[in-house]
Structure formats: C-alpha cells, structure tokens
C-alpha cells in the first residue's frame, strides 16, 4: 500500500491520535509550570527547603515513566488505561524539572536589580511579580523547553499500555512490520516538539522585550 494511500485512508485516526498527544503533552506541562512557580519561589527563599525540594525532585525524576504509569493507578485508584495516569506522571516530571529551574532562575536575578526595586519602594510581592519573575523568564523558558520536548517523547511510552496517542502508530508499525505508520508517528512527534519549542521561544521573546537590544548588539 502506498504512503499517500495509507495516510489518506487513516487520516481521521492520525488526527485523533495527534490531538490526544497534544493534550497529553500540554496539560501536564502547564500544570507543572503553574505548580513549579510557587514551589520554586519557596525553595529559593528558604535555603533548607532548596535541598529538600531539589533532592525529592531528583529522586522523582529517576523513576522510569513506564513504571510510574503503572504505579500511579495503585496510588490514585484509577484504571490502568485512564489517561489521567499519564497526565499526573508527566505533571510530576515537569514539576520535578522546573522547580529547580525556577529556584535557580530567581536566584540568578542580579542583586543590584533587587536592591534597586527595594529602593524604589516595591513591596516584596511587587518585587517578585514585577521584577524578579520577569528577569528570571529566560531561565525558566529554557527549562520549559526541555520539559515540553521530553514530554512529547515520554507520552509515546503509554502506547505500551494501550493508551491512544502518536505512540500507537509505533506499535502498529511493529505489529504490521510497516514503515509508513511508524515514520508518520515519529515525524509527527518531532513536528510537535519543534512547534512547542518554537512557541516557548516566541513567548520568551514576547515576555522579555528588553533583551532584544542587548542580544542584537
């Protein structure tokens, strides 16, 4: 069967799998980021908390994803095929990666900048939201890029359990010994990764307009 033939006759399924893949990647990335911001701030402010949080995050990150997909149902009481397991697992990975990035990003804000904000009469929450967080955006964006690209690829492991997303095309390719579904899946995964990566780069530029001048000089 020709390439175009296979793709056109399976187009609906490919679109469905791609949409599932996008959700399974984006939801955990966004929740992970939202949770990492306060937790990372806390780790940055409280020295002993940093060691505890970064240590726990590191251990969490060592647990293989396929194992986590299976252990989570035991803890959450969900069914093994429930996509919620994938979302929770990837949220944990994203959080584990970003909490350290956020803490390090906030710590990388130059002392002079913080002092200047203080001298201008900023309250501590104003300083955090209006000065420290914006200055830390490039560091956080760099971490977010790693997280989202890894997530696109980790989601595919769920195909081994039978949860539909682009990884299902890999298992189909193996079962039928066919290149076309396999390559379609791999290419779409890479395309998704490149798109998400590009969106974060674009968002970073949008959020840090003051950096353009220094970058181009």
């Amino acid at each position, binding site marked *: 069967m020709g390439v175009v033939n296979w793709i056109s006759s399976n187009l609906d399924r490919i679109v469905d799998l791609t949409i599932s893949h996008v959700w399974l990647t984006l939801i955990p990335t966004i929740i992970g980021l939202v949770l990492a911001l306060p937790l990372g701030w806390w780790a940055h402010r409280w020295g002993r908390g940093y060691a505890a949080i970064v240590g726990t995050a590191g251990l969490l990150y*060592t647990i293989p994803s396929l194992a986590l997909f299976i*252990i989570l149902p035991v803890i959450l009481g969900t069914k093994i095929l429930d996509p919620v397991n994938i979302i929770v697992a990837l949220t944990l990975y994203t959080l584990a990666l970003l909490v350290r990035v956020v803490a390090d990003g906030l710590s990388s804000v130059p002392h002079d900048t913080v002092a200047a904000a203080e001298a201008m009469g900023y309250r501590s929450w104003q300083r955090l939201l209006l000065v420290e967080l914006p200055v830390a955006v490039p560091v956080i964006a760099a971490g977010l890029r790693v997280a989202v690209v890894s997530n696109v690829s980790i989601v595919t492991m769920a195909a081994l359990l039978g949860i539909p997303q682009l990884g299902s095309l*890999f298992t189909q*390719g193996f079962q039928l010994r066919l290149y076309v579904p396999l390559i379609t899946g791999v290419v779409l*995964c890479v395309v998704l990764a490149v798109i998400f990566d590009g969106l974060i780069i674009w968002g970073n530029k949008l959020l840090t307009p003051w950096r353009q001048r220094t970058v181009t000089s």
Partner: protein
Amino acid sequence: MNIFGWFTDPTNWTSSDGIPTQIGYHLLYSGIALLVALAIGVPLGIVIGYTGRGEALVAGFANALRALPSLGLLVLLFLIISPVVSGNLVFVLPTIVVLVLLAVPPILTGTYAGIQNADPDAVGAARGMGFSKRQILLLVQLPCALPLMISGVRSSTLQIVSTATIAAYLGLQGLGRFILDGRAQADFAEMAGGAILVAALALLLEFGFAGLGRLIVSPGLRRVAAKSTSPVATTVPTTVTA
C-alpha cells in the same frame, strides 16, 4: 490485584524466567550499553574538552535526540535491520543501539564540561611545576573533571536502565517482561510488580552513584564543591524518556 502476593509467590523467584533472572538480563543489556557508551563518550569528550571544538554539534545532537521518541527509534531500527540480520541479534542489536544513543550525550557532556571547568589555578600551577600537556590532562584536568563525569555517567545509567524496560517489547528478556506480559494477560499484580522492580533498581543505582562520588572524588574537590553556593547547575539534567 495482589501485588504483595506476587512478590511473595516463590515461583516468581525460583522459575527460570523469575525475578532474579530478569534482573540479571536487565543489568546485562544495561551493562553492555553502558560500556559501549563509555568507550565512545569518554575519549570523544576528552578530545572536545581538550580542543574546545565540536561542542555545538554535541549540544545539537543531544537536543535532537530528546525529541526522538525511544520507542519509535527502537521499532525503526528493528524494521531496518530485520531483513539483514537473523537470530536473536535482530532484537538485541536495535535495543543496544537505542540505549547507546541515549547514553552517549550525558557522558560526553559531563566529560568535556568537566575538563573545561577544571580549576584554571590548578592547571596553571601544574604548568608552573613543569607538567607536560599530557600530565596536566591525566593528573590534573581529568581528576578535576571527575564530579561532572560521574554525574554524566549517572544520568546515562539511569536513562539506560529505564529504557531497557522497552527491550521486552521486541520480545527480549528483562524487567519489562513482567510489565508487558502482565499487560497481555490482564494480570495487574505482575505489571505493578515489574514496575516497582524497575523503579527500585533505578533508585538503588541513584543512591549507588551518590556513594561512588563520595568514594572516588578527591576530598579537595569536594570541599570546594560544598563551599560554593553558586546556584549554577553542576549536574547534567537527567531526562528519563522511558
């Protein structure tokens, strides 16, 4: 759904494809892949660290690899070599190649970053004492690079051990067998048992590497590392994709 029952069932420990056997296979595949990755990554890392060339290429390669799903890569390699290679090798070869591909970048990065970040004062002092370039590399730069190298090898090992689970998908042995066989027979206890074993193995190795670092890194370097409060990441971030 009795996970405890699965772990305490003696046949799961004594049968020819029981827990000890599968841990053995898992470590065998992982060990082979790690040795090959070390044989490629360390010398290449030394060359890059010493000459300062090729960094961008390595970074690009590592980033591209992160976007490539390892399961897809495994099946792709299998489809490519299946008409050419026969026997068990048709399953073993793709597995080892995928594991090596994932393991080389952290080792490479750890090695060259370690050499480049070696304390310039120590390198200068060695030069002043009349060390040759080779002596500086072997006696000063490499020992100084050890913490970052170990961190890279740690990342690689964890990556290998977690990804080796999917070797079972092609039909190979290893701890992934329990997960996939359990899935096929709707035996959740077996699946969970396999998952817990893989997670425990990964955590055990993580602690093992922490101990190893304490054992072989020069005490002088450790004091410096403990004193510095710089938040700059000294470890290569681990990305577990399996």
